[in-house]
């Protein structure tokens, strides 16, 4: 392991070639991971990742860095468990320190309904050998003494929780830079500042992309563009079951280590953790309306800070440093949308909503296998894009943590 806090990856500034075997649109976690696994697992190195801004500029650089596997549909638990296991070995594999830090994650319940939900979650997780337990308020207090069990004394005390001990935080920038650097070492081209403005489809088959750097032919095109999945797919004439919603978060100034656990409330729709840098990081729910605007709002800041103080009173003394907004590509059933589209050789990995960061290794690996073999891996088959046509939704809204 070299370089504890190595700075960002410097990309070779070569001009894009006129043709690649695979063009990945979007230089975020999923796009770069797909390219990396194509090169490392399948020997396909004539690959370009096209990023219109800088790598990690979108959802990968804006999420709240939590990784966990405590999902509540069998398909999702298996998928996210796989992703978590890959994350655990990822620093070694990429030779890039991701600062993965095991914290333990609560999902607090303040109502009978959510309490029942967390108990079901714990039981299902245990059936899949995922370490989630159902605990009472006394154990919550013992594991995290800073929590106010009365939750601000507003009539909604904490009556229980699910506790997912493996829940961790990871430096998200490092995930992007680590994948980019490793992919680049294997021969993948990563082009920043190259936006895709068109997708050429001939006889029902995608054959290339029009970019701000000219036309590039492609054997296969993969869109990994998160909040912009609909607009990129529309370039190929594909319509997706996705709406784009804003999600906001904020951090305080850095403080000494005080909050070891990740505290989330499934009733209050807020989650709080302390970053390795010492900032207290607070996020909440998505806005219910759709937008592509990333302007932040004061009303969010006020509401979210208030919830944070109700759960963790010490946060009332902290000073807010920064707030930001990311765009989430929400699917109707809160599960991802991965696989082929009606346009041959145009694949999509999308519907990552508020749960995409924790899925990066497994998602990238599955998409790489799909591109390389032409066969959909079994662990993403339930997430096929047209599943709603025959009523095969994978409803997992309660696992998003933000609804």
């Amino acid at each position, binding site marked *: 392991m070299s370089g504890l806090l190595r700075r960002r990856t410097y990309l070779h500034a070569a001009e894009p070639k006129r043709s690649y075997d695979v063009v990945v649109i979007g230089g975020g976690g999923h796009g770069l991971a797909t390219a990396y696994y194509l090169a490392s697992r399948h020997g396909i190195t004539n690959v370009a990742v096209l990023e219109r801004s800088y790598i990690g500029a979108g959802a990968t650089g804006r999420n709240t860095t939590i990784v966990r596997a405590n999902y509540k549909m069998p398909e999702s638990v298996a998928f996210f468990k796989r992703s978590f296991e890959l994350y655990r070995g990822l620093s070694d594999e990429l030779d890039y320190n991701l600062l993965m830090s095991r914290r333990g994650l609560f999902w607090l319940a303040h109502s009978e309904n959510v309490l029942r939900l967390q108990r079901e979650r714990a039981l299902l997780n245990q059936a899949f050998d995922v370490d989630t337990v159902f605990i009472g308020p006394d154990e919550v207090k013992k594991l995290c003494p800073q929590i106010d069990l009365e939750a601000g004394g507003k009539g909604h005390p904490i009556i229980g929780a699910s506790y997912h001990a493996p829940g961790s935080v990871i430096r998200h920038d490092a995930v992007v830079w680590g994948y980019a650097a490793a992919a680049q070492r294997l021969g993948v081209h990563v082009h920043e500042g190259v936006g895709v403005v068109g997708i050429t489809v001939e006889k029902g088959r995608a054959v290339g992309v029009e970019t701000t750097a000219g036309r590039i032919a492609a054997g296969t095109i993969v869109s990994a563009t998160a909040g912009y999945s609909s607009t990129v797919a529309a370039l190929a004439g594909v*319509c997706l079951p*996705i709406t784009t919603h804003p999600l906001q978060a904020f951090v305080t100034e850095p403080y000494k280590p005080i909050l070891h656990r990740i505290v989330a409330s499934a009733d209050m729709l807020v989650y709080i953790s302390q970053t390795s840098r010492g900032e207290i990081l607070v996020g909440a729910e998505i806005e*219910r309306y759709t937008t592509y605007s990333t302007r932040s709002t004061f*009303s969010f800041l006020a509401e979210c800070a208030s919830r944070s103080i109700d759960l963790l009173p010490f946060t009332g003394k902290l000073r807010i440093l920064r707030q930001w907004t990311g765009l989430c590509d929400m699917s109707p059933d809160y599960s991802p949308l991965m696989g082929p589209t009606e346009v041959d050789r145009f694949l999509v990995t999308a519907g990552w909503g508020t749960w995409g960061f924790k899925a990066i290794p497994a998602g990238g690996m599955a998409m790489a296998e799909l591109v390389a073999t032409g066969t959909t891996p079994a662990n993403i088959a339930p997430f096929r894009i047209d599943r709603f046509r025959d009523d095969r939704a994978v409803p997992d809204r309660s696992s998003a943590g933000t609804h």
Partner: protein
Amino acid sequence: MGFKIDCPNCGPRSYHEFWFGGELRRYDPDCTDEEDYRNTWLRANAAGPQQERWFHYAGCRRWLTLERDTVNNTVTPLQVIPLGG
């Protein structure tokens, strides 16, 4: 970002007073299964002007149809069910 919706019944109000009803879709009872699937599940999710429905729950409690630019959230009312209507 925060924005205001100029409700023809109530005047300009914060978007917090409204429920978002999604992009405007027209249901055709004679549609094919394929059209029904696309209408029910697929969304244009446009980056730019979009016709959509909002419900003014903290005001006149009427549905209104408006056009909003989803990139900058500029709103133009198109149609509303009037009070008493």
